[in-house]
């Protein structure tokens, strides 16, 4: 029963802050932090129990929510290694980011509102993780969308922020539509929403291959929206309008990873479906990974660079699921949660110090922000996947899986992404923390409530990868116990892959170093020579332009015009205003008989009586 507390506590905290303690800033933040911390301490013993005995039976509990003949909708939890891992990440990173926010948001007028939204988010996210059926995951899926909307639009008086919030919500809606259809397909085919029962039916071969293909592709649509995969990736970079802790928690560590979590949850379906499903997933991931890494090169806003690197990482995870190793995807999800949250929080600390997002207005910050700079560099090394930081192990898992899968295009895309990641992360470090002084004022290190989470996250970002060393037993993969596709499941530590990826990363770092530190490669000359491609990158491949000017302006607006015509003319004018007009004019006509003259009334009355008499006499 204490598992329900995971949902009740954050929800209660959100409600309490909204209704009662909104005016007391400190109290609100303590309630919110207390709720997420309590969740962490509920999760911790379960997590440790599962780590101690990886093959523990899963726990499932539920109650009936809607029960009609032929359909049962439950609200329930499913605790297995996969959800325990995710619970641990969400509550642990969540706690650190809550604590960090206390410092980061210190004199914001919306302080209490911020914490209420964070609690709402924790509630929704834990709901996704715990869900034991598709309907429940869908409900909480929408709830994280809502909290994401509220938090992106946190500075709603800023037009860019409210636009970004709307964009995120609407773009997600497209993906969620597919998700909803997918749920319908699966329910239609299997007659249940429950994951374990669906898995049972899939293993028993009750679902036809085409149904499974359709179902998995439609469910994947949900992941495309939430995990910001190409072509619905456009919302994530704009989502950086929200406060930085939000970017760290929601748009890097947890919510955007929910898509990957969901794919891992339904991996039994993906791997049982015809290979076309996983191929689509793998290529979507690879395109996103490579495209986003390229785009990150063209950005100069510290948060946007990290945002694009997040996109790229999400692409990696999705590709990993696609090449048949959901385990590697989840492993990358875990390491990514730590190092990306760390990077965002460091970026927040830098922004806090410099009051700007533009890396060209920073430079030489490392002596001023020692802790931030150190942790940022550690996080970046993990992100780039340098041996032996966490990113190395998780990226290596994915690349090995791609290599073992045998599709060299995917493998090449992965390696190329690693190379470009090396370049732009090096650029980010060098331009922000080293080189010439370009900042104004006197930046100072952030308060301990911000730096302590950085240090804790940095420790995890460095070491957490060690749990996934392939030669260890038991290691991460055996803990998770996901059944991968046959070809991708069993692959050891591939020396070729490890060495080649290390070489390309170092090549990337060296190019970055030569360009942005020693100046051997002059960035301005490069910019002049490759002006065209650079402009392409700066404008994000014109995908946003394409959406704005073609999809929205041409197609969407035409549809909107037709809908408006139908709405205004048929629904409003005919169906609603029509009867009103009729009644109004009938009233206008009838009231002309109310003259106020007594004799008129008498006349009508007498006439009526006479008519009655005549009628009576005639019949």
């Amino acid at each position, binding site marked *: 029963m204490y598992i329900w507390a995971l949902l009740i506590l954050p929800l209660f905290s959100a409600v309490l802050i909204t209704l009662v303690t909104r005016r007391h800033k400190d109290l609100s933040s303590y309630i919110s932090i207390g709720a997420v911390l309590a969740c962490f301490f509920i999760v911790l013993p379960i997590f440790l129990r599962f780590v101690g005995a990886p093959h523990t039976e899963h726990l499932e509990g539920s109650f009936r929510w809607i029960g009609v003949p032929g359909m049962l909708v439950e609200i329930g939890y499913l605790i297995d290694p996969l959800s325990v891992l995710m619970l641990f990440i969400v509550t642990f990173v969540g706690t650190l980011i809550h604590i960090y926010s206390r410092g980061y948001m210190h004199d914001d007028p919306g302080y209490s509102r911020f914490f209420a939204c964070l609690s709402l988010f924790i509630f929704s996210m834990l709901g996704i993780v715990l869900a034991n059926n598709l309907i429940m995951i869908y409900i909480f899926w929408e709830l994280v969308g809502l909290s994401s909307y509220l938090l992106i639009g946190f500075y709603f008086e800023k037009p860019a922020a409210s636009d970004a919030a709307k964009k995120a919500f609407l773009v997600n809606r497209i993906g969620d539509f597919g998700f909803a259809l997918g749920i319908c397909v699966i329910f239609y085919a299997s007659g249940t929403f429950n994951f374990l029962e669906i898995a049972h039916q899939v293993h028993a071969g009750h679902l036809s291959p085409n149904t499974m293909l359709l179902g998995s592709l439609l469910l994947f649509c949900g992941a495309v929206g939430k995990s910001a995969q190409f072509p619905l990736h456009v919302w994530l970079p704009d989502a950086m309008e929200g406060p930085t802790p939000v970017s760290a928690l929601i748009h890097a560590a947890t919510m955007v990873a929910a898509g990957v979590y969901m794919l891992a949850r339904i991996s039994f379906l993906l791997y049982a479906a015809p290979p076309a499903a996983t191929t689509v997933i793998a290529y979507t991931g690879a395109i996103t990974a490579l495209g986003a890494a390229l785009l990150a090169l063209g950005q100069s806003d510290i948060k946007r660079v990290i945002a694009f690197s997040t996109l790229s990482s999400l692409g990696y995870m999705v590709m990993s699921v696609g090449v048949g190793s959901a385990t590697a995807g989840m492993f990358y999800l875990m390491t990514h949660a730590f190092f990306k949250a760390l990077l965002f929080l460091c970026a927040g600390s830098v922004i806090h110090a410099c009051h700007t997002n533009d890396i060209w207005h920073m430079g030489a910050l490392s002596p001023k922000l020692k802790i931030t700079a150190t942790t940022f560099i550690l996080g970046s090394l993990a992100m780039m996947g340098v041996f032996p930081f966490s990113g190395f192990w998780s990226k290596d898992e994915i690349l090995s899986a791609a290599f073992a899968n045998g599709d060299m295009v995917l493998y090449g895309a992965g390696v190329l992404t690693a190379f470009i990641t090396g370049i732009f992360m090096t650029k980010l470090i060098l331009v922000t923390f080293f080189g010439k002084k370009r900042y104004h004022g006197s930046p100072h290190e952030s308060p301990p409530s911000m730096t302590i989470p950085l240090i804790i996250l940095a420790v995890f970002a460095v070491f957490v990868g060690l749990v996934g060393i392939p030669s260890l037993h038991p290691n991460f993969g055996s803990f998770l116990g996901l059944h991968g596709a046959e070809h991708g499941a069993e692959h050891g530590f591939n020396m070729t892959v490890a060495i080649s990826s290390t070489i390309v990363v170092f090549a990337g770092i060296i190019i970055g170093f030569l360009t942005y530190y020693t100046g051997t490669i002059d960035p301005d000359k490069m910019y002049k020579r490759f002006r065209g491609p650079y402009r392409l990158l700066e404008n994000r491949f014109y995908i946003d332009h394409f959406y704005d000017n073609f999809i929205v302006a041409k197609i969407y607006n035409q549809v909107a015009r037709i809908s408006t015509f139908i709405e205004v003319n048929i629904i409003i004018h005919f169906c609603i205003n029509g009867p009103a007009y009729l009644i109004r004019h009938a009233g206008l006509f009838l009231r002309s008989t109310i003259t106020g003259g007594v*004799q008129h009334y008498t*006349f009508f009355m*007498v006439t009526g009586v006479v008519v009655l008499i005549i009628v009576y006499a005639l019949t």
Partner: protein
Amino acid sequence: MVTLTHYLILSFLLFSIGVAGVLIRRNIIIMLMSMELIFNSVNISLAAFSYYLHSLSGTIIVIFNITIAAAEVAIGLAILVAVYRRRKTVYVDELNKLRY
């Protein structure tokens, strides 16, 4: 020989005169008087029926009617006086404020 028909014709004539008075005359006092006429035409017919049908109930109703008519006229005249004090007119075509 005066028969029931004669009484009924008288009653009908009085009734018609009364209705015409209510419909045509503008003076509210005349209208009130015309209504009394209608009233009494009914009383006549009731009394006549009572006489010719050898039943006392008609007569009793007439007596009730006269009592009620007295009270009604008292109220009607009182309202009339109040209206006159306020509006300084007794013509119904000027008393037409209760309208749309």
